[in-house]
């Protein structure tokens, strides 16, 4: 399990390219033995942050500490971190063994020691038989494992992974996710994983940092991020959600009383709201139950039905024209209303999340 010790301490890191700011003072702490993911859309700064830890980007401001030691101004070859590159960057003119051995030899290991370690690591990623092949003779998935092995061989303090699964096809990606998670447990090294795929982040991470526009929006475990997003961006980026315009009347004892669209009252944890005002209520589509018209907190008309295999997705419209989605499990007992039908929606109080913005 991830310990409380901080492996990488990122303190108010700023990165500017001329007039463009990629990172606006990012601070976070990555713990030892943790699978930590940087998640966000393209351009949010997650790759820039990763490259700053590796040393490929010089930060404009702030400090980066690795196990207490300030590495902010160290060049990449002096930092005890290793990277798995998005395009693997395997040296085309070297064999698998030579690739994996590279970092060890640079650190001064002797050849016999290096070979021993190489074989050990190749076994770990199940590529023992491919030691003498050249990268051009390997499949995408195999190349990725070589890249992993190469980065793990020198026993880095932290392993950085830059969207390593994006070039793989779906089935392979799912299999590799499981392997990567197991590898992290086995090696006990902190993994810093960058991805834009929120499903990947949710399934693999111990903790996730959701980023947007160069800023960290929220840091938490997958359930925390999913169930209790702190703002609209996080609520919307992770999974699907309904965002209802609500009027908060009063906040007391950590609970908020508010009016839903359509007029009905609702009480739920106040979360970020401190007092009365306008806000958004985030409700996940799978946490809404259908009932008779008038029997729930909201009334809506069905505007469309989408068959998703595992679920049925219902599109609905409220009286004030707001759109909503509800997910029903595709089982024999589920009753799916017809298009045009009016239904009632029951919201689970614990599943609704009040957002201040």
């Amino acid at each position: 399990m991830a310990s409380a010790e901080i492996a990488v301490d990122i303190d108010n890191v700023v990165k500017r390219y001329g007039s463009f700011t990629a990172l606006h003072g990012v601070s976070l702490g990555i713990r030892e033995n943790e699978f930590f993911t940087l998640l966000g859309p393209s351009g949010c700064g997650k790759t820039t942050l990763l490259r700053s830890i590796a040393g490929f980007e010089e930060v404009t401001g702030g400090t980066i500490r690795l196990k207490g030691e300030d590495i902010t101004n160290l060049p990449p070859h002096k930092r005890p971190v290793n990277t798995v590159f998005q395009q693997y960057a395997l040296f085309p003119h070297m064999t698998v063994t030579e690739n994996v051995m590279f970092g060890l030899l640079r650190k001064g290991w002797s050849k016999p020691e290096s070979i021993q370690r190489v074989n050990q690591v190749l076994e770990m990623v199940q590529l023992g038989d491919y030691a003498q092949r050249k990268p051009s003779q390997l499949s995408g998935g195999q190349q990725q494992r070589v890249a992993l092995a190469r980065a793990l061989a020198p026993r880095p303090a932290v392993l950085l992974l830059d969207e390593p699964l994006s070039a793989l096809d779906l089935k392979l990606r799912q299999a590799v996710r499981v392997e990567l998670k197991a590898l992290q447990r086995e090696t006990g090294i902190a993994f810093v994983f960058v991805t834009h795929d929120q499903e990947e982040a949710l399934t693999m991470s111990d903790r996730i940092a959701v980023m947007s526009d160069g800023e960290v929006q929220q840091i938490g475990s997958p359930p925390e991020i999913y169930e209790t997003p702190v703002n609209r961006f996080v609520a919307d980026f992770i999974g699907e959600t309904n965002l209802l315009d609500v009027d908060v009347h009063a906040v007391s004892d950590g609970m908020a009383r508010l009016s839903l669209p359509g007029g009905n009252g609702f009480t739920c944890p106040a979360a970020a709201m401190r007092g009365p005002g306008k806000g958004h209520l985030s409700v996940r589509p799978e946490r809404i139950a259908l009932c008779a018209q008038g029997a729930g907190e909201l009334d809506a008309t069905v505007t469309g039905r989408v068959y998703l295999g595992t679920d049925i997705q219902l599109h609905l419209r409220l009286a004030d024209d707001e759109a909503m989605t509800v997910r029903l499990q595709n089982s024999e007992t589920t009753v799916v209303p017809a298009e045009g039908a009016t239904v009632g929606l029951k919201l689970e109080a614990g599943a609704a999340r009040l957002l201040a913005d």
Partner: protein
Amino acid sequence: MAAGAPMGGGAVSNVYKGNTAKLMAPAWAMIGIFLLAPVAMMVMYSFLTKEFRGGVIWDFTIAAYDQFFFDRGLFGDEPPTIEWTYIGIFWRSIWQAGVATIACLLIGFPTAWFIATRRPSTRSAWLFLVTIPYWVNLLIRTVSMKFLIRDTGPLNELLLWTGAVTEPLGLINTNFAVQLGLFYSYLPFMVLPIYAAVERYDFSLSEAAADLYSNIWTTLWLVILPVVKPGIVAGCILVFVPSLGAFLAPDLLGGAKTFMIGSLIEEQFKGSAGNWPFGAAASTILLSIVMAVLLFYARSQNKGSER
């Protein structure tokens, strides 16, 4: 595929950035000392006085240019009249180079087009065929051409033997021979840029033109040529400039009547009859013409890409 441009540049370019001066130093030293400085010195020499047995006396004068342009001293008793001899030689060189360029264009364009429209697998073979002769020593090629077309050469022998002519074609030592020699020397320089441009040509443009009732020749003139114009211009420059200052073709294939700039300049530096400042002046004038052409070309390129 390269890792992203603005981000990927960071670490590696930072590594080398600090060392650009050291890395470029050898090239700067070599070319600066042994080409730039010599050219500057050559220009200076054109303003010096000629030494009797070749070489110079360090006496500044514009005598060389005077001799080039005027038949009497610029500061003599009577107003000077233009000396056409040397200007004429330059003019003839421009004309010869121009004819060679046009010949290269007329033959080179169809050739380049043909090769570029072959199947990809055979294209490089055709290109190879066209460029192999270029890689043979220019001297050897010019000598071979001389051997072929001279009065006692195989070409005339063949023509005489088949009865096509009754006496040898006086091909050698003519303007035609020189033009042929220039054409022969620099043809691949026309073919390659045009080939590159045609390869990038989008054939759906031809299809659109055909769809709009244009036959292939109208399409060529109105659609294709304008689109591949950059390649054509590049090819013309690459043929014209070397042809202008060429020495071997005029010297081996031409004669007294076809004297060109290259031969004029070479003559000034041979033995004791030479006039170094004059030769330097002629070289400076040639260099100026070429630089002007290249500058004009570079300007037009920039304007094009800014659009």
